[in-house]
């Protein structure tokens, strides 16, 4: 059940300000996006319409802390079929950016950011790679690229990603909901 007591009326306006978020208000909830979504066939709990609806209602915690936000494969099936012409994949992306800003960054991305900060690369160059390059007649490459690391630092993204969620997470995640249902 949705308890609107915790809803944040500013949430949708904040989301619209993000790049890609401007289509949000056009949604009239026809569920074409959810019906087109290939991820939804695999996991019923992923539902683009639900994410959009909750955003419009202002359920900030539920939306930003939801692990399903990160399931989108960017196949653009929803974008193509939306009768309101909303770029749904871009909208989901805008909400993802918002989530990271508010301290809800998935662990995998934090690890990647850490690599970028330390090495300026997403893949560590090891002796094996250097040998392979030599075999192919390529010059040796630097193990770290400080310039890239600097750019990452300037963007402040690491600060955002490692910050604690700004709103206390009162959200019951879906797995615990499911357990409850099973018990009943």
């Amino acid at each position, binding site marked *: 059940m949705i308890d609107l007591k915790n809803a944040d009326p500013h949430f949708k306006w904040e989301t619209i300000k*993000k*790049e*890609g978020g401007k289509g949000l208000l056009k949604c009239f909830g026809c569920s074409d996006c959810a019906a087109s979504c*290939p*991820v939804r*066939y*695999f*996991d019923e709990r992923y539902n683009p319409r639900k994410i959009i609806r909750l955003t419009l209602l202002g359920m900030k915690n539920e939306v930003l802390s939801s692990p399903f936000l*990160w*399931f989108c*494969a*960017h*196949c*653009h*099936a929803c*974008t*193509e*079929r939306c009768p309101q012409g909303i*770029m749904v*994949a*871009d909208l989901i*992306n805008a909400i993802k*950016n918002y989530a990271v800003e508010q301290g809800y960054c998935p662990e*995998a991305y934090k690890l990647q950011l850490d690599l970028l900060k330390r090495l300026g690369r997403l893949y560590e160059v090891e002796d094996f790679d250097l040998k392979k390059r030599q075999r192919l007649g390529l010059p040796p490459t630097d193990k770290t690229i400080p310039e890239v690391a600097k750019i990452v630092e300037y963007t402040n993204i690491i600060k955002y990603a490692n910050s604690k969620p700004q709103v206390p997470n009162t959200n019951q995640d879906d797995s615990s909901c499911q357990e409850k249902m099973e018990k009943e």
Partner: protein
Amino acid sequence: MKLQYYPGCTLYTKAKPLNTSLHACFNAVGIELAELPHWYCCGTTFMLARDNRMSLIAPLRILAKAQQEDGKVLVPCSICYNTLKRANYMLKENTEVLDIINEHLEESYDGNEIVLHPLEFFRDNEELVRSKVKKSLQNLKVGCYYGCLLLRPQQEIQFDDPEAPTIFENFISSIGATPIDFPLKVECCGAYLVVNSPDAAVEASYKLLRNAQDNGADVVVTTCPLCYYNLDALQGKMKKAHPDFKEIPIFYFSQIMAIALGMEEKKLGLEQNKVSPYEILKEYNLL
């Protein structure tokens, strides 16, 4: 005749068979593919970072470089095609961003480079293709799988109808094989989910392969290296999850074309297929 082409990273690594067979096909129709000098990664994650001007730098530099050589560039990889074409669209629509990036890079790109997919080229030169066909593939029923990136978002890509495209079927008929239409030909194969949630990709790919088989396809043909990987390499896992699943060989469009043009086997790169294509090809006397 020479045609400028941008291979992209995968054509030199995972998708080598696409590269070799495509070269063979173009040579057979009398066109030499001239590789863009000093090319680099197209940026690939364009679709994930619309707000970021930085992600437009790589595509712009490639397009600017290509424009210096020739007015159009052939891009065989679906992901590169999507990235370059969407970037081109954005730069053309938003001249402000174009000016800013141009200024930083000291390039003078105007947004007019034509990005061309091999299927578009073969569509425009259909008679040329027909005249070079040597082997009859008439009995081979080919499921034409488009994937997402060639078609969507249609406004920016303008490749074909996003829900009911026909360019692939027409291509398959022009090389003499029988195209099979199946409802899930434009559905997603699971794409990058293979990294984080492989089960999701296995299910998505299984569903569409099953759909192709139910509609009578002997083989499935695709253009995209990522779709190719998901459809081909995940079939072992599909079999584990669904024991009644029968394996189906996957080809690049250029491999099927090279077979029709009577190329020798070593130019096809068939040895890299995870699901063996030899049985079906022998059954129809195509090897």
